[in-house]
């Protein structure tokens, strides 16, 4: 009660007349426009979308932990070459401790094995001899000359010549002779052995001694099931094409007629692995399973190329994470270059919006000045400037952009330079529309009374144009600019889409959709192009909503 009584008193004190100016809430023209604008639902929707777009591009780009050109990697299983296996077709040599084989021993051995001349001279001038201890298995001797006269008449020599041999034994010493009419006699020192078998120890640390290799070869050649070497007794077990040598019942070494090579260095192929592979080769299998060091079964694929086997294995490799589907790390997925699409959409939004505003700003600047001058001065100035406008209006914009885009391609302009160039070219083509609007408005405005009054007060031409006429054109300019923003963003997107606008590594929404030019991407990876397209659509739509709302607000009579 108390409050109300007090209020009544106040009301009486402030009593107003019916025609009191304070009774009618007077709004400034600007406020009226704002009020009408904010009543328009579509315009508000547009405003909200644009604000969200700005937040998305500028704040989002700053918040997101990724950069626009940051490349992401992933691990993937790829079938890679693991090892190769070749049947041994050259003699493999084991050298005795402290001895050295001549460099051309390989070819000389092959030659001796084929023509049966077991004594030969190597390129370094020394004489060497082979002793056949089994099929394709030889001992190699280094020879030193012995006095010839002593042996040439011996019956052992004669019978050896008759047999076609090149050595004979006398008093427990083996003598060699060259196969000439006037032979030279030699005594030999064992320096190595040659065979078509490769040796692999089961324990990678074991060094197989020369004595072991020679004795095992001899035992194998003689079909024995055990032999002695280095004071130990070894057993021989034949497994298919391979020979397993055991020590105390345990596997000790593997002799096989296949040579294995790991593709990556540092990989030790164990005899067990080789045995498994050899079995698979023998069965003509295309793959085999072998447990790795951790006991996990790994499948190996075999490719047979004319006796050369290639073993492949699925190996984990680091690859660029391209076209990854949306996930927790990449909300919109990644693109062809393994870059985070969300980050690119944000940075692309910055460029798209920025280009829109810069272009419109330049357009309005040029358009207002030229349109204003043409409209105000009229006569030949107007005629000249408007013909200029006509000329530029007639130039087809899209082909021109394409030509300029290819020129920039040729000079390999930097991404930033491209953006500036694009802005300037679009503005230089686009200002004519604004010039026409400004000129038309000013032509009708300058005949009105307030301009006659302005002229009568004697203020300068500059002030008359830019203080009195141009502010009256601003409503149209704002409407045109807000709708033009959408058009500019569309044009830029189209150019970038054709690959002539913004270029990698800079992003724009158009250049992100560019990926659909690859039909495979279009059909398989919708998440790559759909978001960018929706963002363009939403932004342009929002600018059109705002422009539409502004037009209504400025011109209540027309009401859209």
């Amino acid at each position, binding site marked *: 009660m108390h409050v109300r009584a007090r209020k009544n008193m106040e009301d009486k004190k402030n009593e107003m007349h019916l025609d009191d100016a304070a009774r009618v809430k007077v709004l400034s023209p600007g406020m009226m426009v704002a009020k009408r604008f904010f009543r328009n639902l579509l315009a508000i929707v547009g405003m909200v979308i644009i604000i969200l777009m700005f937040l998305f591009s500028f704040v989002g780009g700053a918040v997101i932990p990724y950069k626009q050109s940051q490349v992401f990697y992933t691990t993937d299983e790829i079938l890679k070459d693991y090892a190769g296996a070749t049947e041994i077709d050259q003699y493999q040599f084991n050298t005795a401790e402290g001895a050295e084989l001549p460099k051309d021993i390989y070819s000389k051995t092959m030659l001796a094995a084929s023509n049966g001349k077991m004594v030969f001279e190597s390129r370094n001038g020394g004489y060497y001899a082979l002793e056949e201890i089994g099929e394709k298995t030889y001992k190699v001797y280094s020879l030193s000359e012995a006095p010839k006269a002593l042996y040439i008449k011996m019956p052992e020599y004669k019978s050896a010549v008759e047999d076609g041999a090149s050595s004979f034994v006398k008093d427990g010493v083996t003598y060699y002779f060259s196969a000439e009419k006037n032979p030279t006699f030699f005594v030999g020192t064992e320096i190595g052995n040659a065979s078509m078998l490769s040796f692999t120890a089961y324990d990678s640390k074991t060094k197989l001694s020369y004595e072991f290799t020679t004795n095992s070869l001899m035992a194998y050649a003689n079909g024995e099931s055990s032999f002695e070497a280095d004071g130990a007794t070894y057993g021989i077990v034949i497994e298919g094409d391979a020979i397993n040598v055991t020590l105390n019942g345990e596997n000790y070494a593997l002799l096989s007629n296949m040579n294995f090579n790991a593709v990556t260095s540092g990989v030790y192929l164990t005899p067990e692995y080789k045995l498994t592979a050899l079995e698979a080769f023998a069965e003509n299998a295309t793959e085999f399973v072998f447990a790795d060091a951790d006991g996990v079964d790994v499948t190996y694929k075999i490719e047979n190329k004319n006796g050369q086997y290639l073993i492949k294995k699925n190996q984990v490799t680091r690859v660029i994470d391209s076209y990854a589907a949306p996930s927790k790390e990449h909300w919109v997925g990644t693109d062809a270059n393994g870059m985070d699409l969300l980050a690119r959409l944000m940075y692309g939004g910055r460029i798209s919006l920025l280009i829109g505003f810069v272009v419109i700003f330049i357009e309005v600047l040029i358009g207002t000045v030229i349109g204003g001058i043409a409209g105000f001065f009229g006569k030949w100035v107007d005629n000249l400037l408007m013909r200029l406008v006509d*000329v530029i209006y007639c130039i*087809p914009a899209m082909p021109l952009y394409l030509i300029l885009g290819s*020129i920039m391609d040729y000079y390999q302009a930097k991404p930033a330079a491209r953006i500036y160039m694009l802005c300037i070219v679009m503005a230089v083509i686009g200002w004519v529309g604004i010039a026409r609007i400004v000129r038309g408005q000013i032509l009708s405005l300058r005949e009105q009374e307030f301009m006659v009054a302005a002229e009568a007060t004697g203020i300068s031409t500059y002030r008359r144009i830019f203080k009195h006429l141009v502010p009256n054109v601003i409503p149209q300019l704002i409407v045109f600019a807000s709708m033009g923003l959408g058009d500019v963003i569309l044009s830029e997107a*189209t150019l970038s889409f054709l690959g002539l606008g913004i270029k990698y590594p800079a992003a724009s929404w158009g250049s992100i959709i560019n990926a659909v030019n690859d039909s495979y991407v*279009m059909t398989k990876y919708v998440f790559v192009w759909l978001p960018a397209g929706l963002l363009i659509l939403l932004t342009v739509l929002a600018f059109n909503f705002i422009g539409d709302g502004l037009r209504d607000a400025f011109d209540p009579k027309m009401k859209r």
Partner: protein
Amino acid sequence: MKKFIIKRLLISVVLLFFVSLIIYGIMRCMPTSYVEQQAMALATRPGAKSYQEWVKQLNEQYGLDVGILQGYFQWARRAIKMDFGDSWFWNQPVLQKFSSVIWYSFALALVSFILEMIIAIPLGILAARKQYSVADYTITVVALIGISLPSFFFATILKYIFSVKLGWVDLYGIVGRMHESLTPTGKIIDIAKHMILPVVTLTVVSIGSMMRYTRTNMLEVLNSDYIRTARAKGLSESKVVNYHAFRNTLIPIITLLGGSLPGLFGGAMITETLFQIPGIGYTSYQCIVQGDIPFVMFYMVFMAVLTLLGNLISDILYAVVDPRVRVN
């Protein structure tokens, strides 16, 4: 009237001169012209002359060894006689290539133009008659979406849905794989089938502005005095709208449509390129990428002529359709 048309035509010729001069200047600045590519290819042949020598010879051959201004006048002298030279990329006279591709573009543009009129004008009038209704808002939003749709995005969505997912039409091209083995009727149906998506794209992208234009003009007419008079006379609402209002709305619409008639020959570069329709737009896109100066020159000047012609037609139509303009 005659004097007006003659004056406009003369101005157009002067404008055309400057426009073509600017275009020629830009074309000559193109570094990746067809000549360089040709020279590069010829120079790699065994026992060929060096690249520089080829460039020189080809430049002489194609008349590019003279200055821009001189070259322009050479071009213009022949262009007046309708001789636009040979297209470098297509290896045939420009006009011959042009006449072989223009009808695809024209058919595409005409069909979508008719569709646009049939859909946009009634909807625009409906929106104006029921201002602020749900229908009005829906039509406004749809129209604005149409204006805002990037054609390449919309085309991609159409392709994705109708070609990839549903498989009703082909992704690209104007004819199907089995085109040659079809009957004459089958061939026409085949081409028509390939035109569906491009036509839909063009129609949807361009329908919005037409719809809004009709609506704005209809609103203006409906608010005018003579409509109030007609209503005051007691005429039925349908008679007011369909007879009095509609005929007056047609004035600006016919002007707009008349002005856009020449544009039907201009081709839709983006849409044609996306669907690989071999019309004038796609052809010139390829020429631009290849640096084919004669064809691109012709295309750009042709486009400029179309624009000038469109302006002229809409000015004349305005005078023809609206008696008020004629009196003045």
